[in-house]
């Protein structure tokens, strides 16, 4: 049990917080058929974070989040500009902008030597959940729970903060986001500030992606934005139910996926563990496929 708290608890907590933030945002993106844009956005935040960290020399959460947000807005603005001014087809504009942003981020990683420190490109893509261990400076000491809580890795607090921000944004504008997703033209005709609402949704998405990529990786962020919401979409006809269900599915997916990473190889007699972000993403995809197959038969 002690091993669970030291080795497994923090990765599970980090993956859960990140999965919840991504899944909640994902509901609106899936409903507006913008899952691909979320995929693109999760890659586009990378150069923002890398440049922000390289310039300031700080790898703190606020710096990284601000960099990610800036990159998300720059990329979205550039996509909108290409569509409007260059008459580029939207899918093409997304593909061009976000791949070049991601590529630029990798270049900066290499140039600045950041790739040899905390920002391994491998970790950016598939995450580094296994690196999150919880070593209390005062095991069993008198300071007890509070001390142990403060010894949690910083990334847990970052992810917690981001989840709170994402939930706050979605809760504040829940009526408005629902209308915007269903009928954006009526929303505008009713006098809603559509541009501001889109910016708020972009902010929530970029926050979820940026926070995710430092610990759980881009792959898991994309899987968690798309799969739980798409699965829940098949199971209910109410938006509020869909959002709650997507959160539950995201959490269950993390538990099952993490267990698969830890115990899966042992079933085949291997002492190695799999990459947890990979197995969680795979479980999310399988859950969606199974639900779709079941709905198709019903």
């Amino acid at each position, binding site marked *: 049990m002690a091993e669970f708290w030291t080795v497994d608890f923090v990765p599970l907590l980090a993956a859960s917080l990140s999965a919840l933030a991504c899944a909640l945002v994902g509901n609106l993106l899936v*409903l507006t058929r913008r899952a691909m844009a979320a995929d693109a956005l999760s890659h586009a935040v990378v150069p923002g974070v890398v440049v922000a960290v390289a310039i300031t020399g700080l790898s703190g959460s606020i710096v990284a989040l601000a960099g990610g947000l800036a990159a998300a807005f720059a990329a979205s603005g550039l996509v909108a500009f290409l569509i409007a001014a260059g008459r580029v087809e939207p899918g093409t504009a997304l593909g061009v902008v976000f791949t070049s942003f991601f590529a630029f981020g990798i270049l900066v990683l290499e140039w600045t030597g950041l790739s040899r420190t905390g920002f391994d490109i491998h970790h950016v893509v598939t995450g580094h959940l296994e690196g999150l261990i919880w070593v209390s400076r005062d095991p069993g000491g008198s300071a007890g729970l509070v001390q142990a809580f403060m010894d949690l890795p910083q990334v847990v607090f970052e992810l917690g903060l981001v989840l709170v921000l994402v939930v706050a944004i979605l*809760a*504040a504008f829940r009526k*408005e986001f*629902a209308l915007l997703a269903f009928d954006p*033209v*009526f929303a505008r005709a*009713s006098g809603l500030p559509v541009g501001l609402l889109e910016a708020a949704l972009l902010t929530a998405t970029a926050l979820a992606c940026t926070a995710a990529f430092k610990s759980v990786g881009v792959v898991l962020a994309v899987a968690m934005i798309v799969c739980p919401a798409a699965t829940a979409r098949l199971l*209910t006809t109410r*938006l509020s139910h869909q959002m709650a269900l997507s959160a539950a599915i995201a959490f269950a997916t993390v538990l099952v996926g993490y267990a698969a990473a830890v115990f899966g190889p042992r079933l085949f007699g291997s002492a190695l563990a799999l990459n947890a972000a990979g197995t969680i993403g795979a479980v999310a995809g399988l859950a969606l496929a199974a639900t779709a197959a079941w709905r198709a038969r019903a």
Partner: protein
Amino acid sequence: MLAVTPPEALAPAIGRLAVEGLSVAYRGVPVLNDVSWEAPVTGLTAIVGPNGAGKSTLIKAILGLVPSTGRVTIGGRSVDAMRDATAYVPQRATVDWDFPATALDVVLQGMVREPGWFRGYGRARRERALALLDRVGLADLAGRQIGQMSGGQQQRVFLARGLARDAAILFLDEPLAGVDAASERIILDVFDDLDRDGRLVVCVHHDLGTVSERFADVLVLNKTVIAAGPVQVAFTPQNLARAYGVPLTV
């Protein structure tokens, strides 16, 4: 009666809808060219014209939903300033009816700006939305997912959502297209209520045979204004022939 606001606060009080030199182009191709039109103060007005005449575009341009040049005013003020005097009922085909929402959810969307950020719609607005669903004959289906309704029922949900804005001027895009007889009867009854309340209804209409019995005024459109005014004056075979390019009897 559909009035939440007292009748004296309706269309005559906010002033006339006026369009001056309105032009819209899509990728360099003109869709509307120099449209000038002064709408009647109240009552039921049809916009008619052939396919591609720019009828839907005119409504959208008036409401500022597509880029345009020219001036649109309500009582001398910009449409943005008079936003709450307007309601828009779009064509049914413009949204995804598989969306996870009930009929009641959709009607409530018409009140989206009333409660303010963070707040839900609240009980009073739910009651009001239910009453509006009742007015369009759908009280029984308030909790039904919108994809599980007939085309006519969906159109009535859209109408109820427009009514929820309690606006002096309502713009409707083909509300009678492809609806069953029961839905048509109910929609026309609601139009009569709106007329009695002293509101202005501007309705894109495709069925020339029913214009004179259902509408008091007409705007005959083909990229620009062919004729406008009371039906007896403007809805003539000559004007229709000019708009449609073929002789038509009405």
